């Protein structure tokens, strides 16, 4: 009765909302990045050093485009802008802009980092952007495969195994029957593994995570065994042809943009088309509306006469086909040979891209490009010979994944029924 009676006079303490806490954290991260940029990339560099970025590839139509900047100036400006962005976020007056500020900050930081890495030397910026696109393709395809499944509430952890197995099948068939047959065989392999996952999780209602992990372990074991037994014995089976690059006339000659987007194998083009098709399909067609309803509230879908099980089977198998296409890309376009565990976690990163991309095709595209950038960075820095140990460089994509999935970028709402089997009474 004592403190409570005159409660109106009490100071009511306000606790921060999760969004405000996040903004505080991100603001501090941006300021820390500013300080780090200033210290490592700015003051750590001799005054007057220059970094050169090459903007064209050796055999391009426009010769030798390049851009030289003063290394220290770039770092100082970047640090300044980062500090400003950090302060902006810390004020918490525009919470909706937090992600925008973070993205802008990270892009700037990456640029400052590249400038530092290229001090007193030259760095092929366009080469790195081109590999960014190439390396993002399997991640995007993996993410889209996951999207097909999770939009109908089946969690697909097996993307990794689907990619690996179809890459393997692609090599064997490609070496003996040609690359087009190999492409079809790889997609069929993805479909079969998708069907296995579908039966296990839809019909037998096995925990979907466990079902997926089992498929992955099976795929890794089987392909490693067969590659040692068959491919080492008969190296002829490990040299399929390759889908060559198709340079789009005119568009392919635009500086920077051309080599980045318009000089690739058909896999890259189809991936981009697929992203757009899935976006339109998911949000504007009957197929998309029904699929989403099955992922959000299967019982409601059932009561309007939609066959929940059939929808799930179909989409999970189609997801497998997309993963199979991604696997084919690995061994029929990116390189033309199979190696043990050559996916090295790309499937899982695809899953991370799905979460980062908020279960939307365009989001998966964006997220895939971020991961592709991280992998391209790792490769180029290795060539450039920075003082960072190569082991740390190869961790880059995984660290990016960890940070992204841990929710620094904010939490999105997955499909409401994600991972839950549907039991019809």
């Amino acid at each position, binding site marked *: *009765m*004592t*403190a*409570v009676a005159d*409660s109106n006079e*009490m100071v*009511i*303490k*306000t*606790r921060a*909302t*999760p*969004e405000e806490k996040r903004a505080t954290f991100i603001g501090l991260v941006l300021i820390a990045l500013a300080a780090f940029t200033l210290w490592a990339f700015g003051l750590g560099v001799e005054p007057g050093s220059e970094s050169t970025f090459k903007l064209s590839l050796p055999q391009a139509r426009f010769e030798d485009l390049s851009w030289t900047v003063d290394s220290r100036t770039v770092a100082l400006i970047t640090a300044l802008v980062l500090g400003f962005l950090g302060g902006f976020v810390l004020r918490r007056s525009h919470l909706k802009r937090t992600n925008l500020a973070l993205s802008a900050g990270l892009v700037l930081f990456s640029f400052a980092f590249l400038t530092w890495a290229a001090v007193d030397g030259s760095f092929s910026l366009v080469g790195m952007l081109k590999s960014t696109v190439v390396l993002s393709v399997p991640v995007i395809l993996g993410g889209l495969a996951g999207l097909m499944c999770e939009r109908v509430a089946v969690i697909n952890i097996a993307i990794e195994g689907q990619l690996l197995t179809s890459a393997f099948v692609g090599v064997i068939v490609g070496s003996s029957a040609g690359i087009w047959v190999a492409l079809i065989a790889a997609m069929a392999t993805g479909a079969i593994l998708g069907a296995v996952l579908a039966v296990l999780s839809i019909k037998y209602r096995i925990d979907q995570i466990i079902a997926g992990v089992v498929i992955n372990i099976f795929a890794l074991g089987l392909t490693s065994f067969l590659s040692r037994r068959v491919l080492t014995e008969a190296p002829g089976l490990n040299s399929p042809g390759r889908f060559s690059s198709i340079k789009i006339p005119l568009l392919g000659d635009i500086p920077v943009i051309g080599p980045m987007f318009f000089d690739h194998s058909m896999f890259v083009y189809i991936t981009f088309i697929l992203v757009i098709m899935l976006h339109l*399909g998911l949000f*504007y*067609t*009957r*197929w998309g*509306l*029904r699929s*989403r*309803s099955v992922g*959000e*509230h299967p*019982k*409601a*879908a*059932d*009561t*309007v*006469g*939609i*066959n929940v099980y059939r929808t799930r089977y179909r989409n999970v198998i189609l997801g497998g086909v997309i993963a199979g296409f991604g696997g084919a890309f690995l061994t029929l376009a990116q390189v033309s040979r199979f190696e043990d565990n050559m996916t090295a976690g790309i499937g899982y990163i695809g899953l991370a891209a799905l979460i980062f991309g908020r279960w939307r095709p365009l989001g998966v595209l964006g997220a895939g490009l971020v991961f592709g950038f991280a992998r391209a960075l790792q490769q180029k820095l290795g060539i450039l010979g920075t003082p960072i140990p190569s082991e740390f460089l190869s961790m880059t994509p995984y660290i990016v994944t960890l940070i992204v999935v841990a929710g620094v970028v904010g939490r999105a*709402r997955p499909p*409401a029924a994600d991972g839950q089997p549907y039991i*019809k*009474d």
Partner: protein
Amino acid sequence: MTLELRGITKQFPGVLANDNVNLSVSEGEIVALLGENGAGKTTLMNILYGLYTPTAGEILVDGEPRVFTSPGDAIDAGIGMVHQHFMLIPVFTVAENVALGFEPLKFLSWIDTKKARETVTDISSRYGLEVDPDAMTEDLPVGIQQRVEIIKVLSREARFIVFDEPTSVLTPPEVDSFFDIVNGLRADGKGIIFISHKLSEALEVADRIVIMRRGKTVAEVKPEDVDEAKLAELMVGRPVDLVVDKAPAQPKDVVLSVNELVVLDDRNHRSVDGLSLEVRAGEIVGIAGVQGNGQTELVESITGIRPSLAGLVHLAGEDITTRSPRAIHNRDVAHVPEDRQKRGLVLPFTVTENLVLDSYHQPPISRWILMDWDAARDRAVRLVEEYDVRTPSIEVEVSTLSGGNQQKVIVAREFDRPVQLVIGAQPTRGIDVGSIEYIHSRIVEKRDAGAAVLIISSELEEIKALSDRILVMRGGKIVAEFDPSASVADIGLAMLGSEAETVAS
């Protein structure tokens, strides 16, 4: 033009849910299907809608037997259903929800969104069901979501419409406007089955009343031939007295004091928005309000389950705002949670295990790291006896008990000690009349022993019967206070607030 269910029997493992049930409805007629929770009404309707297959019996539409293996078959036969838990996708727009399953197409699989929107606006203007086709469903109040369900059914050109407990989520003025809609549908020639456990509503709206008890149809009456008492007797099988017997309250010191509390829900909306209230020892305060106005979050925050954003909660003068659920429990607070299957019980655990959920970590139930199961069983035997829990044994899984007995297990666990505060959220939702009477009397007993009691219920009748003081909660705030003798209409109007005019018109 008739719909007839003939000799329907449905056997679930261990339960005979429907036993030779007969029911028919003609076009232009409203039939009320009345029965207690668990009488088998919902099972019967799920059979009619193709969600369950009957063990025996047949469904006749216009005299011809039909077999429904999926809801699609029922929809084709002209049967529509408005489910108790709405079958709407929260993240879809109204037009998308109405179109789902019957999408108008432009070409191939491309949805004609313009036509989908027009369907909604056409039907809403024809039947006076105003709703914005582009609104996101989850942002709409429950009353409007129900309209979306009705529009959905009408867009499939249903001739027979089943409403499963349609008024349980509505405020009294919304109920009135709902009855207007139903009468309009009848005038339009639709045959309507209206499922309810509320006597007054059946009497008000139905042309015929069919009563179910324990899976059987036990009576069919005309509303003009019966009164509420007679209906209640037919429904329960014995004369019932639903008035809670209690002496006037003797309020003493303030026990619970909530001050300017702000709580976010799962979607980060301020569902409790600067709420203040006080509950004194020896009184029962009832909070009335439409579901989803922050009641759930308020209870979760007071009991320590959900953190609050701002404001203070005091228990007998002590600040408990940021205390853990166990710390609050240990300060002699009894909590009967809203959802007994999610929060109150661990369903796969036995009755014994559930009865020691709050005390397993301390003597005499456990010593050091070892459970003393003999002590736990002794406690369980005593509580089952004392609180009249009807269970074959204390070792059966609590999930096998009826709703009423599950609720008694929770009440037994929470009430078996001197408490200074009782928080009961929907304490009698979905349980039989006998258990309701019992739990109400136990709550009054705690009040008379000097506890402060806070009751939250969406059943206005329950709030009125139990409370010494009624608070109305809307939009996360307390908006009005009433004496229990206030009229249902007045309280209902306060529950609805500014929406009152739109719905009434």
